[in-house]
């Protein structure tokens, strides 16, 4: 019988290798001054988890406030500050770096057969920039907060608020450079550090997705940086570029801001799509259906992503003619996403599917991302956009994409590569339960918001007409469930660091190069640089490899 089906290797014989990147050096300094991409990935993992829970706490406060129609839990000002912080933290400090800076950082060199990213010191620098940005956000939070909303709409942010816009702006500026350096590092690594034989079309789709996202990071983020610099200058010296009373155009800020912030959505989701490709292929023991189409759709999303930003401004007084162009292009960008969904679905076809936690999260991703993507079309079509934009429909839409999509993908990836990162398995049963809870909680939280939005409930409201209450109650109840779903992994993953089963090199029998080495890997990743002589997701190759190993051990 063919052995493309391999179950977990015998755990009793596996043990954690004595030398690995974690044990190589000890002491806090060895971590803080490391240039090992794997250690930096772990630094990132810890810091983004920290910020995720702060952002999550803010989300909890928002949902609690919205339990009742009046603003009774907190003053409207506080509410505004809370949702601004939620947005700023979740977007700039969690979603943008989530998969790339942790899993991408850890895995891209491993997947390409390289010893490290091309610029290890820049990689460390980018983590430090992230931390500085994060600390500035925390400073903003404790020193009175900021209530611009994460979109910093001018002239509100420049002339009408006296909160800490400047420190927040600088924080985002700094964190933006962290993201630029990560993206730059990935692009260079992917171009220049591939192992012999690792051609473009042998790269795992995870790498393709990161390549596409990195392009967006490198080319988009600077525009956000300059937009923020202009806002800060407007606030400090009052220069008038965005000030209508001085002849400036506040819409220009929107153009510059969304030039980054729309592609940013793809920066957030593309790496997640990369994770899903890996997970679905592994747990159906099958090559990804239409590898080339999936790879190119990532790049297509990245390229088209730059042409669609104006759909955030359809009702803001942009020219109707350019609206037509942008609306059309937005429709086009939906197509590659559809391609991906169907290709993943057909990867299951004639596979041999198992349902471990990463796969459950991946299924969750596919369902929720499909809804998130399709509701995006409602907003891309200019007619329905008029009614639905700036309401809870939009809130629900991007939470389906970002939380239902990206966060699911992130958790999927964390579970999937947990054995590789730590050398230990997570507990399977409870994590499946967590995946289920997350899925249910998520739908409970965000589905009612679609209806709320259609009914016209505006976003960023601390108080709302009483007839919207019941749906908000549903949403808040769901958020509680969702909170449990996110707390569980933190607990059992921490537990598994000490008590988890030992994983062995390749517990999932996946084909990526990262699975062919010890877990946790050595500091230099590969004892000898591998030579790639097969395509990505070549399960027959893996089978031959296993056969060979078996022969060797039986002879020995």
């Amino acid at each position: 019988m063919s052995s493309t089906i391999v179950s977990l290797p015998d755990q009793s014989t596996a043990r954690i290798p004595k030398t690995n990147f974690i044990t190589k050096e000890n002491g806090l300094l060895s971590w803080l001054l490391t240039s090992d991409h794997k250690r930096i990935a772990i630094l990132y993992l810890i810091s983004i988890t920290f910020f995720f829970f702060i952002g999550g706490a803010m989300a909890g406060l928002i949902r609690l406030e919205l339990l009742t129609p009046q603003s009774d839990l907190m003053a409207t000002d506080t509410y505004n500050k809370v949702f601004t912080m939620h947005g700023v933290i979740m977007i700039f400090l969690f979603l943008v770096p989530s998969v790339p800076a942790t899993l991408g950082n850890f895995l891209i060199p491993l997947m390409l057969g390289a010893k490290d990213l091309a610029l290890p010191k820049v990689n460390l620098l980018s983590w430090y920039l992230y931390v500085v940005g994060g600390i500035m956000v925390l400073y903003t939070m404790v020193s009175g907060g900021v209530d611009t909303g994460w979109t910093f709409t001018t002239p509100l942010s420049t002339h009408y608020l006296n909160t800490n816009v400047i420190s927040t702006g600088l924080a985002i500026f700094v964190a933006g450079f962290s993201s630029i350096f990560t993206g730059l590092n990935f692009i260079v690594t992917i171009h220049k550090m591939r192992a012999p034989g690792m051609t473009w079309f042998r790269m795992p789709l995870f790498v393709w997705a990161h390549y596409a996202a990195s392009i967006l990071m490198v080319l988009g983020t600077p525009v956000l940086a300059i937009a923020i610099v202009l806002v800060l200058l407007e606030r400090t010296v009052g220069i008038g570029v965005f000030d209508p009373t001085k002849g400036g155009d506040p819409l220009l800020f929107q153009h510059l801001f969304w030039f980054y912030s729309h592609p940013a959505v793809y920066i957030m989701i593309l790496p997640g799509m990369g994770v899903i490709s890996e997970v679905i292929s592994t747990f159906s023991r099958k090559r990804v259906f239409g590898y080339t189409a999936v790879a190119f759709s990532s790049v297509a999303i990245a390229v088209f992503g730059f042409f669609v930003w104006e759909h955030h401004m359809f009702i803001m007084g942009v020219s109707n003619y350019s609206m037509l162009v942008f609306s059309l292009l937005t429709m086009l960008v939906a197509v590659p996403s559809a391609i991906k969904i169907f290709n993943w679905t057909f990867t299951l076809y004639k596979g041999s599917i198992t349902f471990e936690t990463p796969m459950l999260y991946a299924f969750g991703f596919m369902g929720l991302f499909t809804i998130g993507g399709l509701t995006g079309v409602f907003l891309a079509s200019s007619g329905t956009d008029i009614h639905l934009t700036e309401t809870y429909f939009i809130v629900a839409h991007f939470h389906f994409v970002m939380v239902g999509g990206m966060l699911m993908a992130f958790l999927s990836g964390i579970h999937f590569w947990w054995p590789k990162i730590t050398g230990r398995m997570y507990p399977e049963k409870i994590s499946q339960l967590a995946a289920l809870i997350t899925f249910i909680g998520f739908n409970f939280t965000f589905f009612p918001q679609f209806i709320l939005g259609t009914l016209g409930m505006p976003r960023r409201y601390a108080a709302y007409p009483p007839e919207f209450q019941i749906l908000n109650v549903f949403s808040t109840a769901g958020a509680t469930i969702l909170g449990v779903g996110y707390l569980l992994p933190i607990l059992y993953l921490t537990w598994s660091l000490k008590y988890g089963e030992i994983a062995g090199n390749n517990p999932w029998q996946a084909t990526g190069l990262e699975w062919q080495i010890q877990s946790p890997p050595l500091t230099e990743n590969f004892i000898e640089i591998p030579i790639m002589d097969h395509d990505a997701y070549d399960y027959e190759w893996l089978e031959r490899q296993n056969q060979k190993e078996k022969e060797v051990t039986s002879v020995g």
Partner: protein
Amino acid sequence: MSDSTAIAQTPHGTHEHPPYQRHHFESMDQQVDATGFAMWLFLLTEIMFFGGLFTAYLIYRNWYFPAFVAGSHQLNIFWGSLNTLVLISSSFTMAMGVWCAEMRKQGALVLCLVLTFILGIGFLGIKTIEYKEKFEKHHVPGLHFSVKSFVDPASDPDIAQYHDKPLRLDMARHTELYFFLYFAMTGMHALHMIIGIGILGFMIFRARAGAYTTGHITFVENFGLYWHFVDIIWIFLFPLLYLISRHG
């Protein structure tokens, strides 16, 4: 699709590494390539960074053309042209510096870098003179900005040659936007120059110790890219800011 042997790399592990090769690179070629490519990507981010400013410039120039003309006339074309020459010369000396490094001419390299350094300082010096003049004439936006030279050009002898018609107050106010863009763009450019000059100082110091004349010139080469990029920005800033409707 499956040209698996497309990558011709030096076989790994067979030759000893030069001291400046970082451990994670397989070969010196790979290292040089990767860092050069990274530098180019960094320059892309710089292009986009300035892109936002250029967009703002184009929009407002289009909207408030008379104000931009009047504002432009306030800039001294002599200093502007001189600065262009200075910067182009510094680019030339930098390019020569890279060549000297390639040719392993240590003395000449140091000379070129010092010349570049001096020209860079010169550029900033001239910029300071110009800024000072703007300050004195109350043309710094957000800071006691005055539209006097624009509503009453006759009062301003510096622009007599252009015979500017007085601007109405509503248009004259928009010169503030012009000057803001002037300061933002040239200031951002000057900031890049300052950073560059700082690095140049460090490089002169290292070059005298012979660091770049051993065949490993990546740093000089990449710095050269940066310096030329800053030059290119100026090449666009000069006509856009200084040369609007200069005919009297």
